[in-house]
């Protein structure tokens, strides 16, 4: 029972990583760029919700604050693409990596200035509630995280593989010029993807903040989500979720049974291992360049 509890707690953590990783993967799939600020997007989304609903701040109703936060982060994602990323059109992947790292710095700075650097937790209606199920105590927040994540992953998967817009997004990433010729509005699609991943980050942030305290540097969690995305191969949505779950569970289990310090480095060690053994991730999609 104890072990099961551990696994479920790990799965809930893993879902948050998975959600952030979904954000990376979506942007990567549609624009071939990697958003190193996704973790900071998540942090910022959580803070917006917190600023709206916590009694110390505005004290709005939680269920009102959530959609506002998600919409705001969507708008922020859109704005970031329109004002910054789009100007980088055609530059190297690495330039965009550095750019998004810098964006993360700025978001962290902004969050710290607006909401302080102290860890705070989000006040939710379901805080502290739990359900006992066959001897296992499950927090409502943990169940919510898992359910929301699964639903989002399924929705996104169908969006990318079944809808016109989703397919157009993939086409836009694989050959921008050809996509243009086919009449796909490449730029608008990229902005949409950024908006979508901003909204996704807000959801991840709210779920994360419902589970524990947040502070501006929590965005560095994004690095663990990278491990998740890389394990999944960066191009696969279900892969990202699976990667997140693996990281989450491994982290919990090693912290319980491993030597001290191991659980901290386990995600990164796993990331390295995957990159060395299977550079394309477990769901590989790369091939050699043709000449």
């Amino acid at each position, binding site marked *: 029972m104890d072990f099961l509890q551990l696994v479920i707690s790990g799965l809930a953590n893993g879902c948050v990583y998975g959600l952030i990783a979904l954000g990376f993967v979506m942007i990567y799939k549609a624009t071939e760029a990697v958003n190193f600020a996704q973790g900071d997007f998540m942090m910022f989304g959580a803070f917006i919700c917190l600023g709206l609903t916590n009694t110390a701040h505005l004290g709005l109703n939680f269920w009102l604050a959530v959609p506002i936060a998600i919409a705001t982060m969507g708008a922020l994602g859109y704005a970031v693409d329109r004002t910054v990323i789009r100007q980088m059109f055609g530059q190297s992947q690495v330039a965009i990596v550095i750019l998004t790292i810098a964006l993360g710095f700025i978001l962290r*700075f902004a969050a710290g200035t607006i909401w302080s650097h102290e860890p705070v937790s989000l006040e939710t209606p379901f805080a502290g509630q739990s359900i006992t199920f066959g001897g296992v105590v499950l927090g409502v927040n943990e169940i919510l995280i898992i359910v929301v994540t699964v639903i989002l992953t399924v929705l996104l998967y169908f969006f990318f593989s079944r809808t016109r817009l989703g397919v157009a997004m993939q086409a836009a990433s694989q050959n921008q010029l050809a996509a243009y010729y086919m009449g796909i509005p490449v730029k608008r699609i990229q902005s949409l993807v950024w908006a979508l991943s901003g909204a996704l980050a807000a959801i991840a942030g709210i779920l994360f903040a419902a589970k524990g305290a947040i502070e501006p540097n929590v965005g560095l969690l994004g690095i663990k989500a990278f491990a998740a995305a890389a394990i999944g191969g960066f191009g696969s949505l279900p892969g990202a979720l699976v990667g997140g779950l693996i990281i989450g569970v491994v982290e919990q289990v090693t912290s319980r049974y491993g030597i001290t310090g191991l659980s901290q480095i386990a995600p990164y060690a796993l990331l390295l291992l995957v990159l060395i053994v299977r550079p394309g991730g477990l769901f590989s999609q790369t091939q050699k360049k043709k000449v």
Partner: protein
Amino acid sequence: MRFVFKTSYDADINWFKHKYQAFWYVLLLAIMLAAPLFIGSYFIGEFALVLIFSVAAMGLMLLTGHTGLPSLGHAAFMAMGCFANVLMLNAGIPWLIAFPLSGIIAGLAGTLIMLPVLRLHGVYLALATLALSILIADIVVLAEPWTGGVAGMIVPPISLFGQEIDRFGTPFLFYYVCLAVTVLVVMLYRNLLRSPLGRSFLAIRDSEVSAQAMGIHLAQTKARSLFLSATFAGLAGALFGHSAGYVNSETFDLVLSINLLIMIVIGGLGFMHGAFLGAVVYTVIPLALAIFRTFLQTAFDININIPGMEAGIFAGILIIMLLFEPMGLYGVWLKLRTYFELFPFYRKDMFKRQKSYLKTERVQ
């Protein structure tokens, strides 16, 4: 505009294109040498920091700017150099031996550790180096008996020709040590860029396929670039240890790695000058902010102290650079120079490059 009439291949090979260019660099060196005459011990310490970061940034520039391999883990190599240096000094090895060795140890260890991930590209390589960087920071904590772990350890002063040199006791001498190391690294770097090995780095940066077709062994050449890069970073790390006087597991963290990368992009990726310009910006921001704060406080009694402001401003500069001047500060300088040389014939699109479109290498 000055036209150089080249009469021998040496004119192309030499460090300086012509006498006037040599003059400017000699003048710069003279100013650097004379700096202690004009400025106080506090600012000379900051000057020394600029030089240290320049050396580290040159290390990263070699790998990222000239070989095209991004690294988010260069602080780890600095850490290796620093701890190796301190351990050797504590073991009684003279500084003159320990210091260069610490660079080489960082180079060798860095190459060995990074070897498995060197075949990765772009984002994947950045991620792998990021993971390595974090792992090494944790290893520093775990290796407490040697590194002092979280508590850290004190860095002994440099002892050179019977003279104790440390940043606070003898700031001017420390500055000269840093200057000497910087000049040495610059010379090695410059030599590299005009020789076959340096050219093979450029080749790998621009086209691995072509480089192979020209007979360049990818893995070996990348490993050499990494070795030299990590060596420079290790030397910088050792100097940084002396400058800080005390190091712990958080001295060389991920943020420093990221800042190094931001430095070389702000300065100008692919230009040696860029490493220096970036290091200057990085060191000047906190200084300027501190001065500004004191000014506000004394003049208007306003007290602003927002943590993370330095990082925010530094990141903001980077974004502005990437958007408006991808060649960095050195690119700005190049354009300015061309503008004045050609006045009034400078055209806006002189440095314009062809737009490239992104093509994936994935198959679905």
